């Protein structure tokens, strides 16, 4: 009861109330809605506990098992240090916390994603093959858009950017609209299933 039925009931109750609140424009309904919005912002802020607990548990286990000790220590020390620096020195612009963000986090995170460009170039050379009509169509559309969006496209011929824009505005739009409608229906169906308790994966094991 405590493990599954009560959480499912809470989920159903909140879903039911907030769904029908949309159609009830009275002042008590609006006050209830505003209160719940503030509560959600407060409750969801504690979700970080899950991430931190899981990460610390994983790396302390690695240290106990003597696997990759220096790296796990680096992670845990930097986690604690950054957290403490923020709590002690504040988080405003110009603080040490802000400098750590600008000169450690930004370069590391940007660089991690920047190396994807190299992998994409390698894949373009080795893997993108026009094996059949569909793949050829995909590559042709890609070439036209790639040339059309850069200034060189306009220098080749004035119609190149216009044609590329037409591909984006018409056939691409049709494909993406079909996908968007499908995804939208899927989201709504999943939301209803969660509220009614048909979808229970969020309960875990």
């Amino acid at each position, binding site marked *: 009861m405590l493990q599954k039925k009560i959480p499912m009931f809470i989920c159903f109750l909140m879903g039911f109330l907030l769904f029908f609140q*949309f159609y009830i424009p009275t002042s008590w309904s*609006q006050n209830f*809605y*505003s209160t719940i*919005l*503030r509560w*959600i*912002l407060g409750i*969801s*802020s504690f*979700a970080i506990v899950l991430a931190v607990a899981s990460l610390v548990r994983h790396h302390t286990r690695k240290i106990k098992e003597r696997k990759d000790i220096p790296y796990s220590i680096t992670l845990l020390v930097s986690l604690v240090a950054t957290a403490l620096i923020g709590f002690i020195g504040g988080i*405003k*612009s110009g603080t040490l916390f*802000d400098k750590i*963000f*600008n000169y450690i*986090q*930004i370069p590391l*995170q*940007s660089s*991690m*994603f920047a190396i994807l*460009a*190299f992998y*994409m*170039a*390698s894949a*373009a*050379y*080795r*893997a*993108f*093959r*026009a094996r059949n009509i569909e793949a050829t169509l995909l*590559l042709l559309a890609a*070439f036209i*858009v*790639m*040339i059309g*969006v*850069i*200034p*060189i496209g*306009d*220098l080749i011929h004035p119609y190149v*950017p216009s044609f590329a*824009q037409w591909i*984006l*505005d018409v056939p*691409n*739009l049709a494909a*993406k*609209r079909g*996908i*968007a409608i499908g995804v939208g229906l899927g989201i709504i169906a999943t939301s209803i299933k969660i509220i009614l308790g048909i979808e229970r994966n969020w309960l875990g094991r």
Partner: protein
Amino acid sequence: MKFLEYLAKIDRRIIYLILAIFIIIPLIKPLNLPIGSSHPVKSLFDFIEKQPEGAVIVLSMDYDASVYPECHPMSRAIARHAFLKNLRLIGLTLNPAGTGLALEVMTEIPKEYNKKYGKDYVFLGFRPDITATILGFGEDIRKIFPYDYFGNKTDTLPIFKDVKNYDQIALVVSISGSALPVSWIYLARGRYGQDIAAGVTAVMAADYYPYLRTGQFVGLLGGMKGAAEYEKLIERRELATSGIDAVSISHILIILFVIIGNIGYIVLLKRRK
């Protein structure tokens, strides 16, 4: 044939080196290729341009450092445009890792235009829940967001004396590296009829054309090119404009890679037959 076989098996690190060289050269020796103006970017520019003085724009900087070169120039350009037109700006972020980037925009840009904090602009900081935050703007902003990023009570800030909710907000611009702009459409526009615009990475840009056609987005900036176009429209050369030459040259290089790779593939395939 041996040459084609060599090309087919070329070390990937040579490909990396060629790409790096083709990016560095146009950065050191700019080509100054002309930057055009596409209709999605122009639509957003015109929408902001026609706003009266004092109108309020919400700039939601929902991205992090992983998409910095694409999204950050967009935020800076939109903020500059708003201040050039003497519009008021409310900044926030729905991505915790992007808070520092949003803080930089809301600290550096207003100084250049002598804007006063609390009266001309305010930074609400990060909010943890997307749905509650977007819907919260439709209720009483001061009740849902009692404090700003710096700990000031929002009901003491002059900007919120006449800005209560979406009714007083002209436009929400969501700059994001994910599907967050669509959440703004679903919730802010769906429930409150708010006008929304988006600045997204090039990866996502092609997916948002259905929303542009229906008017659910009043404008759309796509990738570094979109940011460069906007910088050109506000006549300010920054990161996006600096990088667009390198983008052009590397696009040609990638096309050549695909063509050479396919030529080699077809020739070797015929040879095996």
